[in-house]
């Protein structure tokens, strides 16, 4: 595709606010996401406080926001807290940081494009997201409290039957709005990767990061509309008096079907789990190779495993609904598919282990976070087996075990993966180096306390404690778990405190970090080898022609000739005959670029 060079805007408002530059939009998503991460994290601390010291005044936060109860959490406040924690973390923290920020930043730079395919759509995507953020904040100001129907928003609880007031309505609308933003972003990512790869950047020369982002964008475009429709129908039930999801005594025989919402929700909700992990798999696959100075082991296997997960992700969702009274045969079908999806996950995992085997591991901060992600994902994936197997899931469903499991995969793995990305690309984003020592403290604190927090939840869960209990210890058979819960809470508070180290490091590095070189990690992808730190407005003066994949490390002959252990994706290499015959020749689909 012909890629024009647009003149760089000079006015502040066009340069930093309503910018169409993917690098600026990436930072907008990053900052908004980090703010919501702090908000969602604070809510998590409040939940943990309630389980450690039930019904006592919450320090600091309680005095600020709960003065009417003397700082203590009441049952209605508690339900709002855990509902908002879940929704905020998924839709307003992980999604914008991982997909909004790093998808936007990495896709054009890593495939050799000057911007996204639709720069203006990209801008609308951010501002739509911003509008949805305003609705989230409005929900907190609602007179009857913020949304309180759980992050899954199951009706009839989430209709006026169970959750009257504007708080829940604002959140239903916010989910719809952020869904629209995500779809706009997704379309942009898909088209950009298909149409704007640099000449020679064939599909199998794409960094794994791009594969992860691209597959995630496809899932977003396919399944977020399903969530959007469900949110819209729910809004109609709340505002216009329709009965799509209301049944039972409240509406007599004119009722709708509450189960319909659960199906719509999970046919989105299960792919969502993969939406939040596919980019991480890609990023970690690349970073493990870069920092081990070795090729990514079985690159094509990793790519096909990610594709297999993408395809299967939509047909496993029924395992969230084993207990709803679905036909047993259907349950078994979902069980089979659920277990099947772990095969590609195993392939990815073993590829990571093989990638670091016999490497020369540079245990710098991005690599530490990537290894940490492999660790928590191992735990998260394996704890899923007990939930995929129906007979054991009947007991474990809706216990703290489920909470521990999905936090290890969705929260911990996505979170460590996102930080791996942030420490890795920060020099490219801001042109500054982050403090590596503070980064290491941040890593060790995060990974140790994450393990303790979510490990504690797993144990409490299979010991019988179930989730969303305001006062768990009124049940005698779980009373003995109170000390365990309190220790888990201490670990959670420590995890929260550890994040302050990151905040200090992040701000300090932006303001007065050491200037970063163009390629401080000595890696082979285009954004490091052919872009300044930070990149110029249109990324590349001359769009490079790619001749090889992103993981060319460990060739002794290269070392002898160039004095370094890698080849970038563009340079000619040892000599023309050493390359395979197709290399250097643009694939037909890429001809015409530049």
């Amino acid at each position, binding site marked *: 595709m012909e890629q024009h060079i647009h003149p760089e805007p000079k006015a502040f408002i066009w340069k930093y606010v309503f910018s169409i530059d993917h690098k600026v939009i990436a930072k907008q998503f990053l900052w908004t996401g980090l703010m919501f991460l702090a908000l969602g994290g604070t809510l998590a601390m409040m939940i943990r406080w309630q389980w450690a010291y039930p019904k006592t005044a919450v320090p600091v936060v309680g005095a600020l926001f709960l003065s009417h109860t003397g700082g203590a959490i009441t049952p209605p406040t508690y339900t709002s807290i855990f509902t908002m924690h879940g929704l905020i973390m998924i839709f307003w923290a992980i999604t914008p940081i991982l997909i909004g920020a790093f998808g936007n930043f990495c896709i054009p730079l890593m495939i050799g494009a000057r911007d996204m395919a639709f720069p203006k759509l990209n801008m609308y995507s951010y501002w739509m997201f911003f509008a949805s953020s305003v609705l989230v904040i409005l929900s907190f100001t609602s007179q009857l409290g913020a949304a309180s129907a759980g992050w899954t928003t199951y009706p009839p609880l989430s209709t006026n039957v169970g959750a009257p007031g504007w708080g829940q309505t604002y959140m239903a609308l916010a989910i719809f709005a952020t869904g629209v933003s995500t779809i706009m972003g997704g379309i942009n990512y898909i088209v950009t990767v298909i149409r704007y790869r640099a000449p020679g950047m064939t599909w199998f020369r794409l960094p794994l990061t791009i594969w992860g982002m691209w597959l995630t964008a496809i899932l977003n475009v396919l399944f977020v509309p399903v969530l959007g429709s469900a949110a819209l129908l729910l809004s109609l039930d709340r505002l216009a008096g329709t009965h799509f999801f209301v049944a039972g005594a409240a509406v007599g025989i004119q009722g709708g079907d509450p189960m319909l919402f659960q199906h719509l929700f999970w046919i989105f909700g299960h792919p969502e789990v993969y939406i939040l992990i596919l980019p991480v798999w890609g990023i970690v696959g690349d970073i493990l190779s870069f920092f081990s100075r070795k090729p990514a082991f079985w690159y094509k296997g990793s790519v096909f495993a990610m594709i297999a997960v993408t395809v299967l992700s939509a047909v496993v969702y029924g395992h969230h609904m084993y207990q709803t009274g679905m036909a047993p045969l259907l349950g078994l079908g979902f069980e089979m598919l659920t277990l099947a999806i772990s095969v590609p996950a195993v392939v990815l995992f073993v590829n990571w282990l093989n990638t670091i085997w016999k490497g020369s591991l540079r245990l710098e901060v991005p690599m530490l976070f990537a290894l940490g992600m492999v660790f928590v994902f191992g735990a998260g994936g394996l704890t899923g087996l007990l939930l995929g197997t129906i007979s054991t899931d009947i*007991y474990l469903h809706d216990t703290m075990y489920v909470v521990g499991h999905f936090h290890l995969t969705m929260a911990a793995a996505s979170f460590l993966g996102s930080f791996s990305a942030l420490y890795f690309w920060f020099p490219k984003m801001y042109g500054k180096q982050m403090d590596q020592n503070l980064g290491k403290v941040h890593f060790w604190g995060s990974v140790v306390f994450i393990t303790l927090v979510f490990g504690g939840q797993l144990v409490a869960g299979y010991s019988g404690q179930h989730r969303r209990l305001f006062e768990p210890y009124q*049940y005698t058979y779980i009373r003995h778990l109170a000390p365990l819960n309190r220790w888990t809470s201490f670990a959670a508070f420590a995890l929260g405190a550890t994040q302050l180290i990151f905040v200090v490091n992040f701000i300090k590095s932006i303001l007065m970090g050491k200037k970063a070189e163009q390629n401080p990690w000595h890696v082979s992808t285009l954004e490091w080898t052919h872009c300044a730190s930070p990149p110029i407005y249109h990324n590349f003066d001359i769009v490079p022609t790619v001749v090889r994949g992103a993981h060319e490390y460990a060739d002794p002959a290269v070392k002898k000739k160039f004095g370094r252990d890698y080849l970038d994706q563009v340079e000619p290499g040892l000599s023309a005959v050493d390359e395979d015959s197709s290399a250097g020749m643009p694939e037909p689909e890429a001809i015409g670029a530049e």
Partner: protein
Amino acid sequence: MRLTPIDIGSFWLPRQTSTLAPEVDAGFHVVYWLSVGFFVLVVGAMAYFAVRYRRRREGEKTSSIDHSTALEIVWTTIPALMLLGLFAMGLKGYASAAVAPAEALEIQVTAEKWLWTFTYPNGTTTVNELGVPKDRPVRLVMSSKDIVHSFFVPEFRIKQDLVPGAYTTTWFQATEAKDVAVLCAEYCGTGHSDMGAKIIVMDEPVYKDWLEKGGGASDLPPAELGKKLFTQRSCATCHSLDGSRIQGPSLKGLIGRSEDLEGGASVKVDENYIRESILNPGAKIVRGYPAAMPTFQGLLKDREIDALIAYLKSVN
């Protein structure tokens, strides 16, 4: 709840008191230890590699291996076969849990915010207490009046959602004559945490006697019976006795006080107002509170209503 550094108690599955529990737990143990084994293996390998192959000096030689077909076939096939094994196990356990024996005793269960009602074949109804005979299969036919709830008995290892506008079923056979906790496992709003019930497992003759007397008839003095009912029938989920606001108005100092009602009128609280509010809660709603209380018509006998009133007077 005093906390000492080493006091973290013991953690394992709750007691097994149904015929299903040992079967579920056998599966749990297999998958649990398999997962632990694999976790140690793969994370151990990662940690070992991270230490063993960490960079010791600049310019180390690294392996350029990027493929091994034999290995790849092995580690794709072995997990796939193991997963088939898990599937078969899940299938067997699920079949036991899903299909009740034909001769099972059938009891109707209704859930609503935030209490459980059980109706027996002879027409007896109990609230938040389910009496069942030991060693006999019991099949529950369940529905919800308002939102989705879930019937969870940890010691029986059973869990089944209750959905408005549809019936769902589950079954169990209790193996010990004891009280067993029931929780609502599907989040159902502010009272979710308190939506518990009790299964009273009895030897067959005791159960027969219990059922004939209408399910736990009591000869306690009125105020004491009222105190028991106040928690048992979920009154305490929404009404405090210490003046604090939960869902509904606090019942502290209730008798004789004047309440402002929705719509502008007011009422002086006496025995008749309490009785009306229990049987027809929507009639006079206290201003500023949602009309959320379910009716107890048919769920409380006259003697029990008298007892509740007596209890409220005693704590006035």
